[in-house]
């Protein structure tokens, strides 16, 4: 076979023409590469990225390989959800219509330090993964506070920066957090709550609130803005003996589960038109209609270093058909930042401290 028009038959390019043509190629390639570098953030160092969010948590708490970058200290739990069917008129998700859905969850402290004493923070959290019969999942992370301190990811980032160690002293600047709150009046409801909040002696007696708004979508396509939370069905009498030590929450949970399952009611609060669905720092009025969607039953616990919850990313935007995320900017930010934290810690699984014994 013979090439019909070998290049050697063409008149050679002049040096100027050759330079021009090679430059044209270089400009096109450089333009594409430059656009790519802009899109991936390399040319835009001020952009708030998932990596920057996780970096500031690492800066404030230290790097603890293999652990979550926030809510690092916790314990795995498992059980199931028993639906009442009450939410099935609002959502087509199987979890609300089928009688029972298995759950793998995790109780935790909201700190990036996996060795934080249980009494050091007055907030506890509960993350849940519901696995529906059709294979779709609902993951949610809830906290014992009723509102989030801020409504945007930028403000959350600034709040974390205010708690960062000052390079000069190695300690956080004591005026930075008060200055942050002075500049963020949206944090007032949170600050009012935390003034009265005390570290609970048990995970079992806490209410956990989803805080961010979502939409329930029914088979007809109607969307209802909601917030959800779980309320404990059994409460202790006022605790006579204050908790001892630094790890009393897990010990308490193991003791209670040895005596029998623990139950919470899943409440779904329906927004009225006009209630804020994009601002987790604002509570909804207390008179909103509340559905009793069913009962969360937790039956057993496992250590977090080798339990099933360890490798679950409780990304709040992993949702089944029938539940959708709202415009709340914290939801997408959590989803993006959790992915970054998840990649870091799954790369470090073999660096976790020597395996703890799994508990029944």
């Amino acid at each position, binding site marked *: *076979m*013979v*090439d*019909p*028009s*070998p*290049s*050697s038959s*063409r008149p050679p*390019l002049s040096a100027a023409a*050759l330079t021009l*043509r*090679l430059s*044209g*190629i270089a400009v*096109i*390639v450089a333009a*594409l*590469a430059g*656009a*790519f570098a802009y*899109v*991936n*953030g390399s040319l835009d160092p001020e*952009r*708030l*990225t*998932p*990596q920057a*969010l996780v970096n500031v948590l690492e800066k404030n708490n230290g790097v603890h390989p293999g652990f979550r970058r926030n809510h690092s200290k916790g314990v795995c739990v498992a059980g199931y959800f028993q639906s009442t069917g009450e939410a099935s008129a609002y959502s087509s998700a199987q979890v609300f219509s089928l009688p029972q859905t298995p759950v793998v969850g995790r109780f935790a402290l909201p700190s990036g330090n996996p060795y934080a004493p249980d009494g050091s923070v007055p907030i506890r959290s509960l993350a849940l993964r519901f696995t529906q019969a*059709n*294979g*779709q*999942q609902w993951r949610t992370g809830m906290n014992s506070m009723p509102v989030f301190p801020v409504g945007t*990811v930028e403000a959350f980032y600034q709040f974390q920066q205010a708690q960062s160690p000052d390079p000069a002293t190695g300690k956080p600047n004591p005026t930075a957090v008060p200055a942050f709150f002075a500049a963020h009046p949206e944090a007032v409801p949170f600050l009012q709550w935390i003034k009265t909040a005390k570290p609970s002696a048990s995970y079992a007696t806490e209410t956990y609130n989803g805080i961010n708004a979502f939409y329930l979508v029914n088979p007809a396509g109607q969307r209802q803005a909601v917030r959800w939370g779980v309320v404990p069905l059994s409460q202790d009498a006022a605790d006579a003996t204050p908790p001892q030590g630094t790890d009393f929450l897990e010990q308490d949970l193991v003791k209670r589960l040895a005596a029998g399952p623990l139950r919470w009611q899943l409440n779904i609060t329906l927004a009225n038109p006009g209630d804020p669905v994009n601002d987790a720092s604002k509570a909804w009025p207390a008179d909103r209609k509340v559905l009793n969607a069913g009962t969360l039953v937790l039956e057993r616990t496992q250590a977090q270093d080798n339990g099933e919850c*360890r*490798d*679950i*990313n409780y*990304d709040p*935007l*992993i949702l089944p*058909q029938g539940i*959708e*995320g709202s*415009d709340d*900017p914290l939801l*997408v*930010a959590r*989803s*993006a*930042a959790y*992915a970054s934290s*998840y*990649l870091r810690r*799954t*790369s470090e*699984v*073999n660096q976790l401290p020597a395996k703890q014994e799994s508990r029944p």
Partner: protein
Amino acid sequence: MSAPRHFVPLARLLHWLMALMIIAMLFIGAGMVASVSERHEWLLQLHKPLGIAILLLVIVRLLVRFTTRQPPLPTDLPGWQVLAANASHVLLYALMLALPLLGWGMISAAGDPVMLGDSLQLPSILPAHAQTFALLRKAHGYLAYLLFVTVLVHLAAALFHAWVRRDEVLDSMLRGKG
């Protein structure tokens, strides 16, 4: 029977369609992992179905490639350029096939449901396993950068053929009856 001077029309359609999709996909992926805004979520919802579409198209494309005849490279092309052309095409096909599979595999290994949109669920192709996820997720990212660089080299080479060597290589992908 003489060698064809052009790629068959179906091969050309697949080439240009996938060129657009792959460049879009690379920018979507790079933008998505650098964003904490709602852009992260909608780019992710675009990334997954587009990736599966590319996977299906590259299978069709490989079938077309192996069942049709390709125009030969110019006879006077230096040996190292022939080698580079052949190697870069193998690499392009390998990455077009590997990247969607790595994406699908890493979602599976994370234990996440593989959802394309609200209700369409694909099966998991790997059991949930944290270290496997981390490995596949990193490979997905690094190989996507390798694909971007390979696409740039491919583009530069095509323009070099058209503007500097002035041979028929780019033309064979642009027009003709095959």
